[in-house]
């Protein structure tokens, strides 16, 4: 395991960050626009989101590079911007962290499915290798492969991230099946953990998904498949509709209490996904007695 991961796990739990999309929408991202494009068009807004998480107490912040792979960028006619978007994304988080937080660069899925034949393994590999190499040039502390559903795609992304020599976190979304314990492709936490470890991930986990309730079970089951440290970033429960708009009613304090339970269940890295914001991170810091000022 990488030295950095060992060092972080020694002081577990480590507090990561929360959602970026909603924070970027609040700062001018239009509906239907690619968040990553703001790295170039509105870098100050991206830096503000990263900075807000650092201020809130995140020990690790991610980067606004989730969709910056060639295949997804092509949907927005930005396929030629892979290098620039990833460089800038890492740089913006790095600047906002200013030595107060580690920067883990985000790699998300391509949105293309192997089993339908719309993309091949070699195309996926090329896309992830290109993104991971661009990320590595900007020198983040680690790479996070996140929000994966297909184990084959996740493994290819992890291998590409691994090839940079950076530590790698790999997490998938368990939101399907009658017990909400599978990815949409049917992968169980045990299968994911074992396969992602074999692919070379240093840290293994779950993000997004169907609310908070199932996460303790998912944590336990991931641990049944691997000895690697566990990374969890759940949503703030399920959205409800208020005035015609989706609204997450879980409060920061309720969320922080749930994180405490996940730490008890063995999670080493905790943070939030959809519906969370810097207040949620502050609340986790409070509950864990990590008030920094």
């Amino acid at each position, binding site marked *: 395991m990488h030295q950095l991961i060992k060092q972080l796990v020694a002081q577990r739990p480590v507090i990561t960050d929360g959602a970026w*999309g*909603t924070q970027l*929408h609040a700062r001018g991202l*239009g*509906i*239907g626009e690619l968040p990553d494009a703001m790295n170039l068009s509105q870098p100050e807004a991206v830096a503000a989101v990263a900075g807000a998480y650092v201020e809130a107490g995140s020990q690790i912040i991610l980067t606004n590079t989730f969709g910056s792979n060639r295949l997804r960028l092509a*949907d927005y006619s930005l396929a030629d911007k892979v290098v620039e978007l990833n460089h800038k994304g890492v740089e913006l988080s790095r600047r906002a962290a200013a030595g107060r937080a580690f920067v883990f660069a985000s790699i998300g899925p391509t*949105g293309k*499915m192997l*089993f*339908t034949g719309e993309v091949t393994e070699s195309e996926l590999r090329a896309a992830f290798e290109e993104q991971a190499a661009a990320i590595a040039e900007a020198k983040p502390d680690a790479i996070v492969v996140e929000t994966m559903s297909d184990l084959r795609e996740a493994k290819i992304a992890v291998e590409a991230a691994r090839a940079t020599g950076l530590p790698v976190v790999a997490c998938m979304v368990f*939101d*399907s*099946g*009658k*017990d909400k314990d*599978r*990815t*949409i*492709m*049917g992968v169980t936490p045990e299968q994911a953990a074992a396969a992602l470890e074999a692919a070379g991930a240093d840290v293994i986990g779950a993000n997004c998904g169907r609310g908070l309730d199932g996460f303790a079970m998912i944590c336990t089951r991931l641990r049944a498949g691997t000895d690697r440290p566990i990374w969890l970033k759940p949503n703030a429960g*399920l*959205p*409800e*509709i208020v005035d*015609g*708009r*989706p609204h997450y009613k879980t409060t920061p304090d309720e969320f922080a209490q749930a994180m405490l339970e996940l730490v008890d269940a063995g999670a080493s890295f905790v943070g939030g996904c*959809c519906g969370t914001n810097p207040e949620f991170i502050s609340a986790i810091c409070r509950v864990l007695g990590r008030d920094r000022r």
Partner: protein
Amino acid sequence: MEELKALYDAIIAGDAKTSKAVTEHAIAAGVAPLTLVTEYMIPAMNEVGRRFECNEYFVPELLLAARAMKAALEPLRPLLVASGVQPVGRVVIGTVKGDLHDIGKNLVASMLEGGGFEVIDLGVNVSPEQFVAKVKETNANIVAMSALLTTTMPAMKTTIEALKQAGLRDRVKILVGGAPVTQRYADEIGADGYSETAAGAVPVAKRVLALN
């Protein structure tokens, strides 16, 4: 009819090549088109739906089965039309404005086609105006909308309002779905049907048209 069982098996296995070949063979041998549909194809899709419900099948198996169903329907469709068999319903489907996610939408489109519906797929990022124009043009009786993002969900409501404004609301039933969408949201925006899963969309579509 032993060889026709191969059609049922091929759909469940997601084997489009075999399902089409068996169907073509059966047509040549003079088997009634409707027999193939009602006795082999629909039961196969029902079995696929059952396996999905009990965690034996997931998205890949579902999508491949729907493709095998579609492949088998291809040579049958002109014959069904010629013999006066109408599609169960005509669906205009799309991912709402601002949203580019199509996996769930494609899956629902395939399942509906497999269920005997005629499906007109408008793709992703479909504006309310595009939905309205297509409903007018095709006389569809169902509009099915998908959204993956909480930020794009409100476009479902906007589209329903646009259909009302165009005087089309009474002519179509509205189905909604997607990860953040719930039955409660569907009720609140005045949709007629919601399904949590793609497999569930077929019975819901039939229910809103009062077909079962």
